[in-house]
């Protein structure tokens, strides 16, 4: 698997060249959010707003009303938890095409609880008009801005930075409201998102070797959440459904899947793997995934629970796929 570096930094230059009305607003974290090169190439389209996210959000609404396409860059947590009212009243209510590019989503930062956007999907799924994208690899970083640009309304992106693996072929960009099928099967339906897709891939590699048949969907559009593939996968899963996400188990992917199952009368068990209704603390991604039960081993335990049997898999069996860690604040 190839590791790509600073993909957003390169991609936004390409994107900005194609769309001259794109402007970037930064709340003093642009250099941490891969728009340093953008600021050099397009200084007249890079607006430093200072550490003042509320004003940045409503200001962007003013720019958007005048035909600009503002892209707010800061850590994801500051784009929803701190300024939810501005997001809703200045941008979401009037359905303005503002793009919120939120970095270090979930537990992908050692910055601790104040920096970790662990319930952003849950909060923002309740906001009308808003589309939500959750990035899982370098190919998705390259594709998401075009999807955001073509969406008629505000968009929130959980963006990954620096060293990010490329799981999916560069020639197969992400599609709007369309999950990516990573494996076909009928024993278990597995839905994963963000950096937890990597965990899910580690788990499925080992489980497949045990003869398990898994329908694995990587989900990158969290709102809208009407992809028929989700219903199909849940319908055909013999033993049940399992989700894994870089987010609280309340409000995110697992909850969205639960709603779809209930609404479609799919009477099966669902195991939700994620942050179990708790805040986290500051540490490396690898450590946090394990400590808070958001990793491949926890996922395997969930599948064992659904099937009522043990596969006897140990941690060292999961070492095959190498991980990238996030160590910078």
């Amino acid at each position, binding site marked *: 698997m190839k590791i790509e570096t600073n993909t957003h930094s390169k991609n936004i230059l390409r994107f900005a060249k194609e769309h001259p009305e794109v402007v970037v607003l930064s709340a003093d974290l642009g250099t941490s959010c891969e728009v340093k090169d953008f600021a050099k190439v397009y200084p007249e389209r890079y607006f430093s707003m200072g550490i003042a996210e509320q004003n940045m959000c409503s200001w962007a609404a*003013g720019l958007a009303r005048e035909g600009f396409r503002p892209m707010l860059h800061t850590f994801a947590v500051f784009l929803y938890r701190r300024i939810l009212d*501005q997001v809703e*009243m200045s941008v979401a209510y009037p*359905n303005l095409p503002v793009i919120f590019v939120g970095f270090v989503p979930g537990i992908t930062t050692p910055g601790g609880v104040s920096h970790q956007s662990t319930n952003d999907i849950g909060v923002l799924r309740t906001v009308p008009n808003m589309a939500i994208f959750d990035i899982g690899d370098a190919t998705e970083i390259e594709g998401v801005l075009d999807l955001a640009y073509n969406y008629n309304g505000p968009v929130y992106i959980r963006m990954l930075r620096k060293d990010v693996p490329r799981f999916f072929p560069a020639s197969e960009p992400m599609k709007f409201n369309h999950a990516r099928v990573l494996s076909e099967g009928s024993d278990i339906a597995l839905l994963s998102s963000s950096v937890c897709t990597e965990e899910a891939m580690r788990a499925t590699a080992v489980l497949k070797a045990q003869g398990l048949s898994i329908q694995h969907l990587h989900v990158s559009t969290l709102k809208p959440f009407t992809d028929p593939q989700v219903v199909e996968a849940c319908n055909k899963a013999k033993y049940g459904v399992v989700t894994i996400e870089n987010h609280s188990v309340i409000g995110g992917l697992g909850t969205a899947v639960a709603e779809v199952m209930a609404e479609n009368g799919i009477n099966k068990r669902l195991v939700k793997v994620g942050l179990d209704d708790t805040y986290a603390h500051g540490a490396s991604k690898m450590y946090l995934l394990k400590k808070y039960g958001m990793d491949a081993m926890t996922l395997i335990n969930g599948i064992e629970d659904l099937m009522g049997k043990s596969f006897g898999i140990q941690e060292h069996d999961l070492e095959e796929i190498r991980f990238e860690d996030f160590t910078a604040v």
Partner: protein
Amino acid sequence: MPDVKYSNDQIALAAKNIRKQILGIAINRGGCYLTQACSSAELVSTLYMGILNIGPSLGSPEALPFPGVPSPTNMDYPKGSLYNGYSGREMPDRDRFFVSCCHYASVIYCALAECGRISHSAIEKFNVDGWNMEMIGAEHSPGFENTAGSLGQTVSIAAGTAHAYKLKGNSGRIFCMLSDGELEEGQAWECFQAASFYQLDNFIIYVDVNGQQVEGWTRDVMNTEPMVARMKAFGWEAIEVDGHDIDALKAAAETPHEGKPLMVLCKTNPAQGVPLLEKMLPKHFVTVSSAEKAEFQKFHDEM
């Protein structure tokens, strides 16, 4: 300057009519934001009839049924900005007007009627269920560019618009109207520092300094003075005027403010023109009891 020239007498008459109409609403419906009408009647009339360079209304003269909330499938609904002559089509040399104190909606509607931007009969639909002329307006309501009910945000939206005008080289000015209680919002000060940082000298804020807010006199709830000195320290030009003096309100917009945004602090009296209110002050929302009704009605009829 507006396309239509109004004399100070005409503006003063419009202000008087606004007060009278909103007093009538308060009497007939049991209450209204009457002290705000009294404090801001000259300010709003002078903006529409003596300051703003906006084109004729493009909106329906009559009230409209509520057109639905904005959404990806509902973006072409009739917008409140139409009544300020703005349809979304570029009009680079025209001004824009943002109302942040949107509980002043009745004042805006009545001012629109006074200068012929809506019919007088449209006011009958004020605060009537299912119509676009709510008690607290949103961006479908006549005169409203945006949805301003959560205070502190409209200054930033207006400043972002002023920034966009600068980027596009538009010569029009961006006006924003606040009431003084809103100056307590942190976001307003984030905006003030950014508007100064970006040297938005096309941005002009008029503040109705009526000195009162929901819980009492502003000075007792949370002091914001000295505002002129505070704004100057933030890199703005700022002046204080008598908010009932039409000439002073007009002249204030011409205050030199090169390279800086301008704030005009309009000192006003929330009982101006309706002395019966003096004993109630400070009063955010005036209710007229059945015991008071005859007295208010008599005053209204003699206005």
